[in-house]
C-alpha cells in the first residue's frame, strides 16, 4: 500500500474514532448508551437521552413540539446508522418534515395505518410487537397523538406491560408519542411538553413568517426539573 493511501486511511480511522458524535464502531458497546435527541437541554433533562430496553413517552397537547422532538431523536439515531420504525396508525407523518429534521428516510420504516379502519390501533400495536421482536430496529416510535383517549384505553390492559417485557434487556427503545400520559417503563423516560406559544418574525402583516414553537419540557409527573427549547420552522 502506498504511503499516501496509508496515511489517508489512518486519518479516516482516527477521525471516526475520535468523533464524539460519530457512529460507534462495530464491537463498541452501543447497547447501553441511551439514544440522544440531539437537543442538549432535553438530553441533559433525560440524563443522556431516551433509554434503551424501556418504553418511554413524549406527550403533550397540540403544537407542543412532540413530533418535532421525536423526529430530532430519529434524525440523530438514523444519522448514527440505527434503523428506526415509525408506526403511524393515524397516518399523520409528513416525510418532508422528517427529511427537513435530518431523518435518513431510507433508514426509517414507515407503517401507515388506515385512520378509519376497524382495529387500526390494535393492528398498529401488533405491528410494534412485530418490529420489536424482529431484532432489526433499535428505535420504534408509536404515534398515538391525535387518537382519542377512549380508543387508547380500549386496548387490553397488559398491552404496555407486554411491550415493556419484550424489550427489557435488548438494546431497543420504544417511544410513545401521545396527547397525554399513556405509559412508560420503570426506567423509561416520560417527557411532558407544554407549548409556550409560537414565535413570529416581525409584526403582523404581509411577509411575516412563523419562526418557531416555544416549548417547556418536564420529566416525570412529580419532578420539577424542566427545560425550555424552541423548535424552528422547517420552511
Amino acid at each position: 500500500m502506498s504511503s499516501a493511501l496509508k496515511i489517508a486511511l489512518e486519518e479516516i480511522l482516527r477521525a471516526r474514532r475520535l468523533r464524539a458524535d460519530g457512529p460507534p464502531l462495530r464491537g463498541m458497546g452501543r447497547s447501553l448508551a441511551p439514544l440522544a435527541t440531539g437537543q442538549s437541554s432535553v438530553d441533559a433533562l433525560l440524563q443522556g437521552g431516551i433509554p434503551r430496553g424501556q418504553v418511554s413517552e413524549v406527550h403533550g397537547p397540540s403544537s407542543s413540539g412532540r413530533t418535532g422532538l421525536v423526529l430530532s431523536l430519529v434524525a440523530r439515531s438514523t444519522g448514527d446508522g440505527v434503523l428506526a420504525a415509525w408506526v403511524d396508525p393515524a397516518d399523520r407523518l409528513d416525510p418532508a418534515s422528517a427529511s427537513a429534521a435530518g431523518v435518513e428516510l431510507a433508514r426509517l420504516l414507515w407503517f401507515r395505518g388506515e385512520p378509519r379502519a376497524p382495529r387500526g390501533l390494535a393492528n398498529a400495536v401488533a405491528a410494534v410487537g412485530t418490529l420489536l421482536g424482529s431484532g432489526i430496529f433499535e428505535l420504534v416510535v408509536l404515534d398515538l397523538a391525535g387518537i382519542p383517549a377512549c380508543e387508547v384505553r380500549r386496548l387490553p390492559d397488559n398491552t404496555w406491560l407486554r411491550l415493556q417485557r419484550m424489550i427489557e434487556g435488548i438494546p431497543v427503545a420504544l417511544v410513545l408519542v401521545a396527547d397525554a400520559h399513556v405509559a412508560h417503563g420503570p426506567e423509561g423516560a416520560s417527557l411532558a411538553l407544554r407549548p409556550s406559544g409560537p414565535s413570529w418574525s416581525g409584526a403582523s402583516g404581509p411577509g411575516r413568517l412563523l419562526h418557531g414553537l416555544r416549548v417547556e419540557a418536564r420529566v416525570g409527573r412529580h419532578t420539577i426539573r424542566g427545560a425550555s427549547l424552541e423548535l424552528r420552522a422547517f420552511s
Partner: protein
Amino acid sequence: MFGGLHSPRPLPSETTLVLLAREFAPRVEALGPTPVLLDLQGLGRVWPTPEALGQALLGAMRDRGLIPHVALAGTRVTALVVACARAGLTIIPAGQEAAALAPLPLNLLDLDPDREELLRRWGVQTLGDLAALPAAGFAERFGPEGPHLRRLARGMDDSPLVPAPLPERFEMAMELDWPVEGLEPFSFLLARVLEPLCANLKARGRRAVGLDLELGLVDGTLHRRALHFAAPSCEPRTWRSLLLLDLEAHPPRDAILAIRVRAEPTPARSVQFSLLDPAQPCPERLAETLARLQSRAGAGRVGAASLLDTHRPGAFALGSFAPGPFMALRSASAAARMALRVFRPPLPARVAVRDGAPVFVATACARGVVVDRAGPWRASGDWWDVAWSREEWDVAVASGVYRLFRDRLSGAWFVDGELD
C-alpha cells in the same frame, strides 16, 4: 471413445440434440445446437461394440426426424470433424484418426477466413495437406496457432471435453391423498415441500429470489401465487412464513389436493461486511418482518418514504424498505424543527375572513378565533396536468398552530395539518 453427432437439417429446438445425447451419456459438450460431442467411456456394458452404440445413436436421431451424422473416434476432434463431414455412421479405429481426417476439406476446422485464404494460397486444400506441412517452418510462418492447427489436422486433442452444465430446475410437488383445509395443517405439508427444495438450492450454491406456488384444489382449479423478494434466500422457514402470510391475504377458495413449488434460482450472494459500520439486517428476517407488517397494514402502506422532485405539497413515494450500507453523509440538524402533522386528505374548514386574512376557523380538529397568523404564501403548479393552486396561512388558535390553505381554483378552505 468420443462420439460426434450432427444434423444439417434445422433442429426443432436448440436443445434437441443435447437432450438426445444425454439419453446416452451424462458428459455432453454442446458446440451450439449442433454438433454435439459425447464422452462414451464406460458404455461397454450396455452397447458391447462401437457398431452397436453407433447404430443406437443413428436410430435415435432418425426417430426424431433428424438427418443423422454420427462419428465414433478415439479423439474428440476426430469425432467432431468427421461427424460434420460424413452422413450416416462412421467408426474410426484407434490410431487411424489422421488417415480418416486426411481427405476432408480444410473448412471443417472453422478457421478465420483470412487464415483459411492464406492456407489455400499455399496450396493447402485438405486436412491431410495441413498435417503434412513441416512443423518448424509452419510455426515460423503461421505463428503460435500453427502447431495447434497441425495437431488438430492429425486428429490429436489439445483440450479435454468440457461438459455442458445440466439445466437447473428447482421444483417440488406433492400429491395429497386427502384434501387439506385451513392453513395450519397446510403449513406442515409446505415445510415438507420446501425443505428438500431449499436443500437442493443450497447444494448447488443457489438462492431463490422468487417462488411460484401452485395449489391444485378440490374443485379442479389451480390457485397460483408468485412471491418475489429483493433478498434471495434458501431458508425454508423464511419462505414458509412468507408463503403462509401471502395465503392468509389471498386464501384458496377450496380445499387443497396438490402442491407444486417452483423456485427461481439466483447465485448466492457474497457480502463484504464493513469493520467500521453498523451491521446490516439479516435479509431473510427483514423480508419476513416486512411481509408480516404488510399483512397488517395492507399492500403499499409499509416501506421507506422518499420525496418527489416536485413543488406539490405533501408529494412523496413509499418504496420498499431496503437500507443499504450505512454512509454517514450528513449530520442531523442541531436545532429541533417543528413538524407538520398532516391530515390525509386535508380537512375541509369554515374560515371567516376579514381584510383578506382568516380571523375565525372551524374544522373537525379545531375551532376558534385566530390569535395570530402569517401569510399568505401562494404556490401553484402542474398546470399542464392536474393543476393546483393554493394560498397558505399559518394560524394560531387557542388549541394549537395549524396550516390552512385556500384552494384558489375552488375557493374552498382546508386544514393541511397541525404544526407540532
